[in-house]
């Protein structure tokens, strides 16, 4: 048998060409049947839930920051920075995500304001990432097309472990912002950002870099790490929850399929994680119907779960399921966890899901 081609995760390489040729790129994806009436109700926007959650979020951020500042120099600051770090470095991801979709609030400017703040907290260029996420929804886990594949095959386990510390993201995000601030846009970025949007990429990066420069200057002036503990470093010490929940979205499942039930995972989570993650644990549901706001995802889940694989009952359960898959992928990168559809569910484009995995058993 001829050697299979290794996956090429660049967005302008051989896998990109194949994805376009085989019809995987910009394909028609499976959707569970939901009546227009029910979907209209689920899609309805409301400012109330997001204002409530955002007020809680801001009060918790300011409160924990205040505690951290007050107790700075003693061990008592540690629990405050633990909370502050997660709110800044993790919950900002779900706020970025929902407000980027424009579904969190009904009022557009509210989505835009929270989106810009969360993008800054995450060291993400707000323009670049809006476009990369659009691509992620068009071509979810399509190799050579999706710019947001967190764990590539074969998996780099050291890299995945380091992701929990935020070091790798930090190492990537900060130089990217600086590069963009100097007006340099990479070929990958150009592959999904329209030409007319490129000046906005540079402007946004310059604002972010200016704030970081001001923070560093303040830290030097005060001769203290405190300003950096509040701005910038939480991206390192507080991103573990974002990684813990975010990795589970697609890791270990099929790639190059056009059915979110097969490449995306829904996991039941505790209420605190769901607040931090803004219900993105219902991830199959989100990908299938991205118009549904985070607060309506539990209702959507109840409506369509008969057509979806059984969700993982907990974060721990999901990681126990993923770990052996990653180990097998080290030896045989085509291996993946095949999601079982309920007997009554309608299969869709099964030909993309048929991979001979017998070699993985060797």
């Amino acid at each position, binding site marked *: 048998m001829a050697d299979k081609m290794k996956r090429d995760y660049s967005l302008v390489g051989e896998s990109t060409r194949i994805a376009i040729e085989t019809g995987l790129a910009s394909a028609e994806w499976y959707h569970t049947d939901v009546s227009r009436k029910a979907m*209209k109700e689920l899609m*309805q926007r409301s400012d109330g839930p997001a204002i409530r959650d955002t007020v809680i979020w801001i009060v918790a951020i300011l409160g924990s920051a205040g505690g951290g500042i007050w107790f700075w120099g003693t061990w008592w600051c540690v629990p405050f920075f633990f909370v502050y770090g997660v709110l800044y470095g993790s919950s900002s991801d779900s706020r970025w995500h929902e407000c980027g979709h*424009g579904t969190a609030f*009904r009022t557009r400017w509210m989505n835009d304001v929270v989106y810009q703040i969360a993008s800054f907290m995450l060291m993400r260029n707000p323009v670049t990432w*809006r476009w990369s996420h*659009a691509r992620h*929804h068009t071509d979810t886990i399509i190799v050579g097309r999706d710019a947001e594949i967190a764990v590539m095959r074969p998996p780099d386990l050291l890299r995945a472990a380091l992701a929990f510390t935020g070091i790798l993201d930090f190492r990537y995000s900060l130089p990217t912002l600086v590069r963009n601030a100097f007006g340099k846009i990479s070929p990958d970025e150009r592959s999904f950002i329209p030409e007319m949007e490129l000046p906005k990429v540079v402007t946004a990066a310059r604002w972010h870099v200016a704030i970081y420069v001001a923070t560093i200057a303040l830290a030097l002036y005060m001769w203290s790490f405190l300003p950096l503990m509040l701005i910038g470093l939480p991206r390192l010490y507080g991103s573990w929850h974002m990684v813990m929940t975010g990795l589970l979205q697609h890791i270990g499942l099929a790639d190059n399929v056009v059915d979110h039930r097969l490449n995306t995972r829904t996991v039941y989570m505790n209420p605190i994680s769901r607040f931090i993650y803004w219900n993105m644990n219902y991830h199959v549901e989100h990908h299938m119907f991205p*118009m549904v706001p985070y607060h309506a995802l539990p209702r959507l889940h109840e409506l369509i779960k008969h057509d979806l694989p059984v969700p993982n009952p907990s974060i721990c359960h999901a990681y126990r399921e993923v770990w052996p898959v990653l180990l097998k992928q080290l030896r045989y990168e085509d291996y993946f966890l095949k999601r079982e559809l309920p007997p009554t569910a309608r299969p869709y484009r099964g030909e993309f899901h048929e991979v001979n995995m017998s070699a993985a058993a060797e």
Partner: protein
Amino acid sequence: MADWVEACAVDDVEEEDVIRFDHGGRTFAVYRSPDDEFFATDGFCTHEKAHLADGLVMDDIIECPKHNGRFNYKTGQAKGAPVCVNLVTYPVKVAAGKVLIQIG
């Protein structure tokens, strides 16, 4: 002179909603605004090929179901990323309980 084509009955579209209308190999979207006026645009989003009729109508905005791109369906104006190209709009009139659109 462009033809007026019957797209649907008035009652086929709920208030603040949209339906799909196919004609001559083309797809259109027919809207009924909250103040009970009718409008028509091309049926597909200008960003990627998604049926706008599956989207959400809010006031004078249609939001695409795929990437949440927003247009003003009365003017066709794209309201920001990820949509950058305006929608084509079509004249609409109501006669004898039917919605007619003028297709060029």
